[in-house]
């Protein structure tokens, strides 16, 4: 009976993981800007999550638990590559065919390249907050830093992005600029 229960639990957990796969992939992509790498990171995360399922005490923390595994995999990758702070050369941002419309692709490209210029610690926090929608407390749990550090990283990331998205428009460093001068 216990075996059957465990089997059901495992199946349910697998389904929970599968439901979250797409978002995990997109978050991983926002960090590495590389489709194959993002896919590898998510695959690895899924495998580790299945193996470590027993260590998940509270089902309500599934998301933070999964993203923490994903982040650890990403940091492991950076360590192996010897680039544990910055990462500029794995991106495949020239490939924007997935964005349907010309105008959209220009804006999306512009925002992504601004995010890509952020130091990795800021990039991780800002995408977890603004794209994945985690609270400060959850981000602190995922990244394993104090909430105050989450706040200061988020502040710096947004200031930086705001500046880049305004300044780049005036400096001609991006393909399409949208600017009002009055």
């Amino acid at each position, binding site marked *: 009976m216990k075996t059957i229960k465990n089997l059901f639990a495992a199946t349910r957990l697998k389904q929970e993981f599968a439901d979250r796969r797409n978002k995990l992939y997109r978050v991983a992509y926002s960090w590495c800007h590389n*489709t194959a790498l*993002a896919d590898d990171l998510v695959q690895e995360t899924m495998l580790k999550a299945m193996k470590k399922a027993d260590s998940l005490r509270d089902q309500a923390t599934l998301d933070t638990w999964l993203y923490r595994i994903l982040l650890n995999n990403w940091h492991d990758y950076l360590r192996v590559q010897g680039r544990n702070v910055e990462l500029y050369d794995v991106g495949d941002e020239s490939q924007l065919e997935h964005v349907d419309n*010309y105008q959209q692709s220009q804006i999306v490209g512009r*925002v992504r390249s601004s995010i890509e210029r952020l130091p990795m610690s800021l990039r991780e926090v800002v995408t977890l*907050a603004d794209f994945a929608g985690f609270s400060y407390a959850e981000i602190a749990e995922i990244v394993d830093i104090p909430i105050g550090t989450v706040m200061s990283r988020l502040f710096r990331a947004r200031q930086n992005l*705001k500046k880049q*998205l305004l300044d780049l428009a005036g400096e001609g460093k991006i393909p399409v600029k949208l600017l009002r001068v009055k």
Partner: protein
Amino acid sequence: MNNKTYTDEKLNLFIDDQLDTDEKDEIRHSILDDSELRERVCQLKAVRELVAYAYEKVPESDCTNGQDKSLSSRYLWKGIAASLMLAIGMLTGWVVNDAAHSMELASAEDVFQYYKHTEQVDRAERKIILHVTTGDISAVNGALDEAEQLLASYREAGTPMKLDIVTYKEGINMLRVGVSPYVDRIEELVEHNKNVSLYACMRSIDKIEKKEGKPVVMMEKAVTDKSAQELISERLQKGWIYIKV
């Protein structure tokens, strides 16, 4: 409360819904009376929305199974597109900013509806410069798509619009007879839209003539009596919106 008493850290907490009710209410009240504070909050929200939308749709890996079908609907993408435009607008200041409403924007759908509403109620003439500086065929094609989209959107919204296409450096090839593959398309665009004008930078023409050692033949409708710099600075001083390709 004075705008200067709120740091950006505090405003981040506000937009991320990390403050308690009293603090949130206090900022909300201040926003109503303080346009500068409103603008700061709007800019932070714009950055947050841009990050969110930049990764709503990413290229799939060859190995990726399973797609989030809910994200592929055309309607949502319209919303995302509008949101991106709105967020960029909030950031650069070229969207008329009804901050009291935009403060409440939460989803792509909301933003799209807000954008539509703003478009419908704000019928002042839009004046746009499309500055083409590249001879790259796909970029020129994209610029023409952009021009047609802008014209169609404003026509649909019933908003008057004036569009000046200003070409510069290699961009003048777009308007060169015998060089541009788009001459017929551009002629048709100008023929059907009396609000579209074509300009080729006088200095760029001179330079290319010197380089090629022969006269540069431009389309009949292209005005060639000023430099792009003059044309653009005149318009910017009058508040035109500038889009560079």
